[in-house]
Protein backbone atom coordinates (compact mmCIF):
# COMPACT_ATOMS: atom_id res chain seq x y z
CA UNK A 1 0.00 0.00 0.00
CA UNK A 2 1.19 3.54 -0.78
CA UNK A 3 2.18 5.76 2.13
CA UNK A 4 -1.00 7.39 3.46
CA UNK A 5 -1.38 11.10 2.79
CA UNK A 6 -1.40 13.48 5.76
CA UNK A 7 -4.17 15.55 4.16
CA UNK A 8 -7.52 14.66 2.58
CA UNK A 9 -9.62 11.50 2.72
CA UNK A 10 -9.33 9.39 5.87
CA UNK A 11 -6.54 11.65 7.24
CA UNK A 12 -8.97 14.60 7.39
CA UNK A 13 -11.68 12.43 8.93
CA UNK A 14 -9.34 11.07 11.63
CA UNK A 15 -7.81 14.50 12.31
CA UNK A 16 -11.31 15.90 12.82
CA UNK A 17 -11.72 13.35 15.65
CA UNK A 18 -8.52 14.67 17.29
CA UNK A 19 -9.66 18.29 16.88
CA UNK A 20 -13.17 17.55 18.19
CA UNK A 21 -11.79 15.71 21.24
CA UNK A 22 -9.58 18.70 21.98
CA UNK A 23 -12.54 21.06 21.60
CA UNK A 24 -14.75 18.81 23.75
CA UNK A 25 -12.09 18.77 26.49
CA UNK A 26 -11.93 22.58 26.46
CA UNK A 27 -15.70 22.88 26.57
CA UNK A 28 -15.81 20.42 29.47
CA UNK A 29 -13.08 22.17 31.47
CA UNK A 30 -14.77 25.52 31.00
CA UNK A 31 -18.32 24.26 31.54
CA UNK A 32 -17.55 22.27 34.67
CA UNK A 33 -15.66 25.23 36.14
CA UNK A 34 -18.52 27.62 35.38
CA UNK A 35 -21.07 25.25 36.94
CA UNK A 36 -19.00 24.75 40.10
CA UNK A 37 -18.48 28.52 40.44
CA UNK A 38 -22.26 28.88 40.29
CA UNK A 39 -22.70 26.36 43.09
CA UNK A 40 -23.64 23.18 41.23
CA UNK A 41 -22.90 19.93 43.06
CA UNK A 42 -20.57 17.26 41.64
CA UNK A 43 -23.63 15.02 41.21
CA UNK A 44 -25.44 17.64 39.16
CA UNK A 45 -22.42 18.23 36.92
CA UNK A 46 -21.97 14.47 36.49
CA UNK A 47 -25.64 14.00 35.61
CA UNK A 48 -25.50 16.84 33.07
CA UNK A 49 -22.45 15.25 31.44
CA UNK A 50 -23.92 11.75 31.58
CA UNK A 51 -20.97 10.34 33.55
CA UNK A 52 -20.49 9.16 37.12
CA UNK A 53 -19.75 11.57 39.94
CA UNK A 54 -16.49 9.71 40.52
CA UNK A 55 -15.42 10.29 36.92
CA UNK A 56 -16.03 14.04 36.98
CA UNK A 57 -14.47 14.31 40.45
CA UNK A 58 -11.32 12.48 39.35
CA UNK A 59 -10.96 14.59 36.22
CA UNK A 60 -11.63 18.06 37.66
CA UNK A 61 -11.32 18.18 41.47
CA UNK A 62 -7.61 18.98 41.72
CA UNK A 63 -7.66 21.66 39.01
CA UNK A 64 -10.66 23.44 40.53
CA UNK A 65 -9.48 23.12 44.14
CA UNK A 66 -6.03 24.45 43.15
CA UNK A 67 -7.76 27.38 41.43
CA UNK A 68 -9.35 28.23 44.80
CA UNK A 69 -12.92 27.59 43.66
CA UNK A 70 -15.28 26.92 46.53
CA UNK A 71 -16.66 23.46 45.88
CA UNK A 72 -20.07 22.47 47.19
CA UNK A 73 -19.88 19.37 49.36
CA UNK A 74 -23.54 19.05 50.36
CA UNK A 75 -25.41 16.36 48.41
CA UNK A 76 -22.15 15.21 46.82
Amino acid at each position, binding site marked *: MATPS*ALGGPADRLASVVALRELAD*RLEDSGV*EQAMREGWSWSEVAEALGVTRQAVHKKHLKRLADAGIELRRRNG
Partner: protein
Amino acid sequence: MTTAMDDDRLTHGMRGLVASCVEEAARRGSTVVEAEHVLLAISADPDIPACRLLADAGLDHASIEKALREERLRSLESAGVQPIDAQTLPASRSTAKPRWGASAAMGMKRERRGGGSRELAVLIGILRAEVGTVPRALAIAGVDRAGLLVRLEQASL
Protein backbone atom coordinates in the same frame (compact mmCIF):
# COMPACT_ATOMS: atom_id res chain seq x y z
CA MET B 1 -2.61 6.38 24.38
CA THR B 2 -0.29 7.80 26.99
CA THR B 3 2.81 6.47 28.60
CA ALA B 4 4.82 7.28 31.69
CA MET B 5 8.09 9.03 31.04
CA ASP B 6 10.77 8.36 33.59
CA ASP B 7 12.75 11.61 33.64
CA ASP B 8 15.61 9.97 35.55
CA ARG B 9 16.43 7.88 32.51
CA LEU B 10 16.88 10.92 30.33
CA THR B 11 20.32 12.30 29.63
CA HIS B 12 21.24 15.54 31.32
CA GLY B 13 21.11 17.55 28.10
CA MET B 14 17.56 16.40 27.42
CA ARG B 15 16.12 17.56 30.73
CA GLY B 16 15.80 21.15 29.51
CA LEU B 17 13.97 20.03 26.39
CA VAL B 18 11.66 17.76 28.37
CA ALA B 19 10.75 20.65 30.69
CA SER B 20 10.11 22.90 27.67
CA CYS B 21 7.86 20.27 26.06
CA VAL B 22 5.82 19.98 29.26
CA GLU B 23 5.55 23.78 29.44
CA GLU B 24 4.41 24.04 25.80
CA ALA B 25 1.71 21.44 26.45
CA ALA B 26 0.53 23.15 29.64
CA ARG B 27 0.56 26.59 28.00
CA ARG B 28 -1.69 25.28 25.25
CA GLY B 29 -4.07 23.80 27.84
CA SER B 30 -3.21 20.20 27.01
CA THR B 31 -2.90 17.52 29.66
CA VAL B 32 -0.87 15.39 27.24
CA VAL B 33 2.51 16.19 25.66
CA GLU B 34 2.23 15.46 21.95
CA ALA B 35 4.67 15.67 19.03
CA GLU B 36 3.59 19.24 18.23
CA HIS B 37 4.66 20.38 21.71
CA VAL B 38 8.10 18.82 21.19
CA LEU B 39 8.39 20.59 17.82
CA LEU B 40 7.40 23.91 19.43
CA ALA B 41 9.88 23.41 22.29
CA ILE B 42 12.76 22.68 19.90
CA SER B 43 11.87 25.70 17.76
CA ALA B 44 11.99 27.96 20.83
CA ASP B 45 15.59 27.19 21.80
CA PRO B 46 18.02 29.07 19.50
CA ASP B 47 21.01 27.53 21.32
CA ILE B 48 20.46 24.10 19.79
CA PRO B 49 21.38 23.21 16.18
CA ALA B 50 17.98 21.54 15.64
CA CYS B 51 16.29 24.91 16.18
CA ARG B 52 18.54 26.63 13.63
CA LEU B 53 17.89 23.90 11.07
CA LEU B 54 14.14 24.38 11.53
CA ALA B 55 14.55 28.14 11.15
CA ASP B 56 16.49 27.59 7.89
CA ALA B 57 13.41 25.73 6.63
CA GLY B 58 11.24 28.74 7.55
CA LEU B 59 9.93 27.10 10.71
CA ASP B 60 10.24 29.38 13.72
CA HIS B 61 8.05 29.11 16.83
CA ALA B 62 5.45 31.60 15.56
CA SER B 63 5.12 30.00 12.13
CA ILE B 64 4.72 26.53 13.68
CA GLU B 65 1.99 27.86 16.00
CA LYS B 66 0.25 29.39 12.99
CA ALA B 67 0.49 26.13 11.04
CA LEU B 68 -0.92 24.18 14.01
CA ARG B 69 -3.84 26.61 14.28
CA GLU B 70 -4.59 26.20 10.60
CA GLU B 71 -4.42 22.43 10.93
CA ARG B 72 -7.04 22.42 13.71
CA LEU B 73 -9.29 24.79 11.77
CA ARG B 74 -9.14 22.57 8.70
CA SER B 75 -9.78 19.44 10.77
CA LEU B 76 -12.81 20.96 12.51
CA GLU B 77 -14.07 22.22 9.17
CA SER B 78 -13.90 18.73 7.68
CA ALA B 79 -16.38 17.69 10.40
CA GLY B 80 -18.58 20.71 9.65
CA VAL B 81 -17.70 22.38 12.95
CA GLN B 82 -16.93 26.06 13.43
CA PRO B 83 -14.11 26.85 15.87
CA ILE B 84 -14.96 28.51 19.18
CA ASP B 85 -12.96 31.52 20.33
CA ALA B 86 -10.79 30.31 23.23
CA GLN B 87 -11.55 33.60 25.03
CA THR B 88 -15.14 32.44 25.46
CA LEU B 89 -14.02 29.21 27.15
CA PRO B 90 -12.21 30.38 30.29
CA ALA B 91 -10.86 27.54 32.44
CA SER B 92 -8.24 27.36 35.16
CA ARG B 93 -5.07 25.68 34.00
CA SER B 94 -4.47 22.13 35.14
CA THR B 95 -1.86 21.93 37.88
CA ALA B 96 -1.03 18.29 37.16
CA LYS B 97 2.10 17.54 35.18
CA PRO B 98 1.07 16.60 31.63
CA ARG B 99 1.43 12.94 30.62
CA TRP B 100 3.28 11.87 27.49
CA GLY B 101 1.22 11.09 24.43
CA ALA B 102 2.10 8.36 21.93
CA SER B 103 3.30 10.78 19.22
CA ALA B 104 5.83 12.53 21.51
CA ALA B 105 6.97 9.32 23.19
CA MET B 106 7.84 7.86 19.79
CA GLY B 107 10.20 10.75 19.02
CA MET B 108 11.75 10.56 22.48
CA LYS B 109 12.35 6.81 22.19
CA ARG B 110 14.41 7.45 19.10
CA GLU B 111 16.63 9.78 21.14
CA ARG B 112 17.86 6.84 23.22
CA ARG B 113 19.06 5.03 20.11
CA GLY B 114 20.41 7.89 18.00
CA GLY B 115 23.90 9.35 17.90
CA GLY B 116 24.83 13.01 17.33
CA SER B 117 22.72 15.81 18.76
CA ARG B 118 19.96 14.32 20.90
CA GLU B 119 17.51 17.10 20.14
CA LEU B 120 18.18 16.55 16.44
CA ALA B 121 17.47 12.81 16.82
CA VAL B 122 14.20 13.61 18.59
CA LEU B 123 13.25 16.12 15.89
CA ILE B 124 13.95 13.53 13.17
CA GLY B 125 11.83 11.01 15.08
CA ILE B 126 8.96 13.51 15.31
CA LEU B 127 9.17 14.48 11.64
CA ARG B 128 9.28 10.87 10.41
CA ALA B 129 5.58 10.45 11.23
CA GLU B 130 3.63 10.35 7.94
CA VAL B 131 0.24 11.15 9.43
CA GLY B 132 -1.02 13.08 12.43
CA THR B 133 -1.06 16.69 13.59
CA VAL B 134 2.60 17.58 12.84
CA PRO B 135 2.81 16.29 9.24
CA ARG B 136 -0.59 17.84 8.54
CA ALA B 137 0.47 21.23 9.90
CA LEU B 138 3.69 21.14 7.89
CA ALA B 139 1.86 20.14 4.70
CA ILE B 140 -0.65 22.97 5.19
CA ALA B 141 2.26 25.40 5.72
CA GLY B 142 3.78 24.20 2.45
CA VAL B 143 6.90 22.73 4.11
CA ASP B 144 8.72 19.98 2.20
CA ARG B 145 8.92 17.53 5.10
CA ALA B 146 10.83 14.87 3.14
CA GLY B 147 13.44 17.42 2.04
CA LEU B 148 13.74 18.77 5.57
CA LEU B 149 14.25 15.23 6.89
CA VAL B 150 17.10 14.65 4.41
CA ARG B 151 18.84 17.85 5.58
CA LEU B 152 18.34 16.95 9.26
CA GLU B 153 19.69 13.45 8.72
CA GLN B 154 22.76 14.84 6.93
CA ALA B 155 23.33 17.25 9.83
CA SER B 156 23.08 14.39 12.34
CA LEU B 157 25.86 12.31 10.74
